[in-house]
């Protein structure tokens, strides 16, 4: 009986050693599998990657406070080793330092967001635009401006300047064509792009671009 017990103990010990050895040894093919698995995880993270953007309210070198789109306040944690900083201008970007980011800058942050806090991987200083649409309620031919009311009943005053790109929908072809201020009428719909600025008052903006949908389209 004792012999049987001893044999069973030895067999159990050998089996345990083999199992233990299997769990710690990795063959080259296992390492390849691990790499594939890691890449897959990285891809999933990348696919789910989202960014946050808003206006800087303060920057103390380790934390940036940010006001988001719905006036939500976020805390952006900066990591001396990890976080990279860029300024976007047109189609290119250049690397900058954390100190170059100041109050009222518009920034985009990538990183992991938890509640109202984000640990930044990268921060981009960028321009911010408002893209809107609504019905033209007033055309001021003396000051070259139009008043637009949107679906949320907000009113915008758009200054049409020489640099403003003025476009109109051709109601026959539905193509988009260049136009002039004289073609814009009260009652038309318009789509517009303006640059968000800190010194804007009463929703009055110089228009970057307007696209008019003539009212005739709706009575055709």
């Amino acid at each position, binding site marked *: 009986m004792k012999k049987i017990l001893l044999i069973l103990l030895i067999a159990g010990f050998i089996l345990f050693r083999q199992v233990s050895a299997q769990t710690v040894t990795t063959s080259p093919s296992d390492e390849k599998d691990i790499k594939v698995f890691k890449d897959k995880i990285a891809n999933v993270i990348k696919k789910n990657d989202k960014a*946050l953007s808003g206006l800087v309210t303060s920057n103390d070198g380790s934390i940036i406070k940010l006001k988001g789109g719905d006036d939500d306040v976020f805390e952006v944690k900066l990591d001396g080793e990890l976080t990279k900083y860029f300024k*976007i201008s047109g*189609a290119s970007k250049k690397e900058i330092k954390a100190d170059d980011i100041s109050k009222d800058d518009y920034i*985009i942050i*990538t990183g992991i967001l938890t509640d109202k806090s984000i640990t930044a*991987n990268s921060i981009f200083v960028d321009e911010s635009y*408002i893209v809107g649409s609504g019905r033209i309620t007033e055309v001021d031919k003396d000051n070259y401006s139009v008043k637009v009311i949107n*679906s949320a009943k907000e009113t915008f005053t758009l200054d049409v300047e020489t640099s403003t790109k003025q476009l109109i929908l051709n109601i026959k072809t539905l193509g988009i064509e260049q136009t002039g201020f004289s073609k814009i009428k009260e009652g038309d719909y318009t*789509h517009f792009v303006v640059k968000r600025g800190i010194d804007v008052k009463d929703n009055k903006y110089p228009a970057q671009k307007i696209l008019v949908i003539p009212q005739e389209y709706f009575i055709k």
Partner: protein
Amino acid sequence: MLGGFFGLTLINKNKETQLIKNKVIAPTIVPDKILSTDSGIIQNLEISSPQDGIVVDNGSVKITGKMEINSLIIIQTPIKDISFKTKKADFSFDLSLALGENVIKIVAYPSDKNQNPQEKDLKIYYLDSQL
């Protein structure tokens, strides 16, 4: 004894009948569709992809969505303006992106011109792959 049992059964039956009569049948909520006043179902503007706030690493994105046939769709971004009429309920188009934040407004003017336009806003971040 038997009378009591019969009475109880009658009370229960009456309760069941009342419950059936008072049962509220709530209308089925169809989030992306509304019922037309005339006939059939009108498809509201719906953007299936991409998700709002997503980061992409190339300079264009395919936008797919749904809207009622014969609606005028206007898409505007700071760098692009697109207009077309929907021939099918599903639509898709490629949109070029600027480096950084891309604010995209998609407005659908329904074929019934008495109906209000419908709008969707998207923010897509084109931040290249080196990061």
